[in-house]
């Protein structure tokens, strides 16, 4: 088998484990003597618990222990870890009787079996002194506050009054997106076991090192006492990037029960205690000259937060860099509600922000009687319009061109309601996609094994993103080996530290560390050989040697190669391992770093039933180098499915009186099924961005959800002649 190459569409190295059921997710590990825990959650949204009667529950069969605010272990600093998000959040750890949202954890029941724990949990009688909850988002606008975020809450570029005064055409509208919940197929779950002072957690997470740090700090124990394991994450999409209450509660319960405890959330408990996407209300004003030149953009956003912690859904992010307007003014304000704390959900900010901005751009194109692609090209930003930095790499023009060509955009009659097939109104719409390129420090190790295999390790995560595969692929490509000789290991805090799998940064953070570790491991082989009198390379200079196809050789005599197993043998048979770290160079500060894409949608709307169907999506992305074409495209496809879901299906309904998530299950929380998805034509330009990271790859996990939801909404406008600005665009709205 030939050496692996970057970009090659190799099959996932963990694929066999996944298709045979051998892949083990956090809650599936068999920990001897583990008891089963269930979380009891509040049924009011605001107030305090006045009485919790556990008498009947305690007498229930199999009950090991019941942890309530009255008897839960007291934690240092009242359970506040002082760890920044994403890892650390403000948790509900039974330290007081306050209730901040409906479905908040208020007790934990531990029993011999899951059914016994569920039965006992149902027998707990809770009384509350309820206070009227704050649940009306828009009523909170006058008292809205500004939250902390890495980007400033207000940003203004240019003379705002002048910019809008110069406009000949103005579009001003309100766009909204609803509350959503991540709902990965694998519910959050933790198995906690104590061995003396040492705590082991099997946790479903996107950030093992974040869990380690947060749990240690919350419990007040040394970080070295905590080990976190997560070889497979059954989807996360942001919800598993933070350490939520149940993780710490499992550790506390295991301590009290004096035995391992397994705590898995029930599906309805995935609505509130583990975050979600906040509702957004976005006011956009676009001012332009008759020729389409933007003179000013205003994008003012409200999103909601909980009463315990702020989280900014930065929907105005892309407005600050996408189009070259001389005036750009944006703001982000927050409304506190009695709901679970919102969090990062796939492309936080850009997912909701592009829905609004890219519909507004379509409305401007209509107002100007201009082609939507031409309008975007007219305002193409050659440099970041608010930071004024050059882009690290930008080939968005090619995305528009190729996308329009593949889709057949030129055949579109721009008039709304101009395409009809019987009862079906057919529409075509487009939008721009964009997401920042993120990267942070990561470590990795590469090990030459005595059996002729190579192991590559990093304490990162694979949420289905393909991390295992690209780690093995990049190591194999670097060492000139087939991928079949490389084993990738991740998901253990005993491995070299990796960052959170969030912000589409894992590939760009971990693979440079893998490459560096491979280089260091080869250097170790070289060092061993040149100082070993038994070696044919004894006394050689390091630069005289090279490593190819698993062999160390003299550059001057390529046939001199000896397999690394021989070197490992000379080294006493112990594996030769090197660890390395990689972080973004200082140069990256000179660039504005983003990925780009153009999305085109064809939608059919049944005029009688109001049913929209996305027949096809064509998307062309500039995401730098795709490290693996197969897994990379799957990420982009998954993002498009999410975009369709945002546009047409997804919404968490909160009861306006009780604050209870109403559709807290997978039947009533609508998300696409197989038949909902039409033909997806996804491609990537593959132009490397070497200003960003050595292999030139930017992240791909999130850009797919951006823009495409607006392309669908714009296609619905084109089909029906009716403009929809509130997601999701459901049949009731289409028929209204």
């Amino acid at each position: 088998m030939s050496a692996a190459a970057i970009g090659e569409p190799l099959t996932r190295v963990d694929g066999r484990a996944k298709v045979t059921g051998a892949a083990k997710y956090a809650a599936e590990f068999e920990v001897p003597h583990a008891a089963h825990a269930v979380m009891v959650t509040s049924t009011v949204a605001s107030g305090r618990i006045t009485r919790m009667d556990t008498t009947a529950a305690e007498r229930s069969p199999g009950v090991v222990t019941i942890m309530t605010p009255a008897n839960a272990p007291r934690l240092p600093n009242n359970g506040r870890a002082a760890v920044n998000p994403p890892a650390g959040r403000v948790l509900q750890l039974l330290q007081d009787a306050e209730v901040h949202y409906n479905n908040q954890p208020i007790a934990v029941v531990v029993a011999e079996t899951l059914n016994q724990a569920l039965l006992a949990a149902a027998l707990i009688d809770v009384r509350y002194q309820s206070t009227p909850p704050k649940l009306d988002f828009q009523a909170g606008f006058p008292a809205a506050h500004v939250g902390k975020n890495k980007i400033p809450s207000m940003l203004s570029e240019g003379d705002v009054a002048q910019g809008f005064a110069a406009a000949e055409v103005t579009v001003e509208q309100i766009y909204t997106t609803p509350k959503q919940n991540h709902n990965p197929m694998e519910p959050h779950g933790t198995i906690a076991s104590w061995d003396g002072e040492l705590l082991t957690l099997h946790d479903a997470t996107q950030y093992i090192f974040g869990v380690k740090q947060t749990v240690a700090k919350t419990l007040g124990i040394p970080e070295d006492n905590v080990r976190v394991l997560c070889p497979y994450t059954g989807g996360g999409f942001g919800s598993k990037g933070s350490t939520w209450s149940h993780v710490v509660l499992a550790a506390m319960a295991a301590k009290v029960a004096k035995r391992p405890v397994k705590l898995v959330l029930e599906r309805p408990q995935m609505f509130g205690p583990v975050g979600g996407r906040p509702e957004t209300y976005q006011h956009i004003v676009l001012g332009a000259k008759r020729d389409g030149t933007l003179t000013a953009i205003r994008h003012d956003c409200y999103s909601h937060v909980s009463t315990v912690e702020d989280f900014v859904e930065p929907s105005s992010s892309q407005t600050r860099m996408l189009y070259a307007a001389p005036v750009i003014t944006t703001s982000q304000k927050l409304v506190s509600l009695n709901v679970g704390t919102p969090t990062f959900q796939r492309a936080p900010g850009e997912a909701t922000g592009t829905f609004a901005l890219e519909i507004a751009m379509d409305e401007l194109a209509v107002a100007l009687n201009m082609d939507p692609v031409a309008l975007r090209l007219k305002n193409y930003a050659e440099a970041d319009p608010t930071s004024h930095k050059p882009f690290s790499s930008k080939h968005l023009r090619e995305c528009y061109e190729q996308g329009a060509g593949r889709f057949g955009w030129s055949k579109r009659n721009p008039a709304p309601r101009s395409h009809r097939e019987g009862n079906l109104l057919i529409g075509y719409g487009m939008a721009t996609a964009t997401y920042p390129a993120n990267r942070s420090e990561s470590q990795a190790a590469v090990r030459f094994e005595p059996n002729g295999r190579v192991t590559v390790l990093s304490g990162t995560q694979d949420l289905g993103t393909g991390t295992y595969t690209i780690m093995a692929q990049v190591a194999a490509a670097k060492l000139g080996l087939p991928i079949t000789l490389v084993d990738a290991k991740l998901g253990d805090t005993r491995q070299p530290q990796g960052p959170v799998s969030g912000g589409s940064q894992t590939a760009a953070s971990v693979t440079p560390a893998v490459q560096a570790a491979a280089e260091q491991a080869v250097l170790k082989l070289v060092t061993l050989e040149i100082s070993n009198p038994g070696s044919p390379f004894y006394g050689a200079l390091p630069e005289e040697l090279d490593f190819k196809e698993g062999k160390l050789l003299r550059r001057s005599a390529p046939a001199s190669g000896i397999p690394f197993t021989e070197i490992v043998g000379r080294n006493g048979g112990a594996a030769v391992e090197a660890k390395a770290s990689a972080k973004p160079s200082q140069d990256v500060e000179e660039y504005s770093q983003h990925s780009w894409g153009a999305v085109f949608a064809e939608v059919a709307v049944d005029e009688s039933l109001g049913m929209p169907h996305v027949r096809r999506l064509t998307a062309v992305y500039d995401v730098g180098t795709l490290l693996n074409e197969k897994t990379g495209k799957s990420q982009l496809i998954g993002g498009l499915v999410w975009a369709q879901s945002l546009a047409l299906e997804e919404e968490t309904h909160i009861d306006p009186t009780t604050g209870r998530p109403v559709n807290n299950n997978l039947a009533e929380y609508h998300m696409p099924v197989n038949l909902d998805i039409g033909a997806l034509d996804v491609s990537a330009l593959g132009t490397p961005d070497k200003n960003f990271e050595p292999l030139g790859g930017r992240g791909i996990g999130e850009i797919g959800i951006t823009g495409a939801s607006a392309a669908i909404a714009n296609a619905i406008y084109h089909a029906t002649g009716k403009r929809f600005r509130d997601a999701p665009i459901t049949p009731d709205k289409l028929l209204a």
Partner: protein
Amino acid sequence: MTGTKKGCDHGQCGSCTVIAGGRRINSCLSLALVHQGDTVTTIEGLAHGDQLHPVQTAFLEHDGYQCGYCTPGQIMSAVALLDEVRKGQPSQVTPELRKAGPVELTPDEIKERMSGNLCRCGAYPGIVAAVQQAYGQTQS
């Protein structure tokens, strides 16, 4: 065995799909005693040693999964689906209900018949391609 997954516990997501008595079922809604005497096949029972079932191989080749959590259920559904169309069992999208013999396995037939299995990662196009390939391979 942990191959069969729990995603919702309410028969809504399909992650727990197994084949019992020759039919695919949501095992979370089924009592073991109802299947007294039945043969129950889970994801662990599909491969013969190292030899994967054609549906498993097709999922690998077409990347019909991402996180893998819904995958055992998807694969068990796909295996049962191939049997259902061969037996001529119609679905909601089958155009001609009175026609005897096997149902033609169009992409829409696959999509409809796989719509009881949610995939939050959105691997649906790969799943359809995988079922098409497996159908072709197991036809003869």
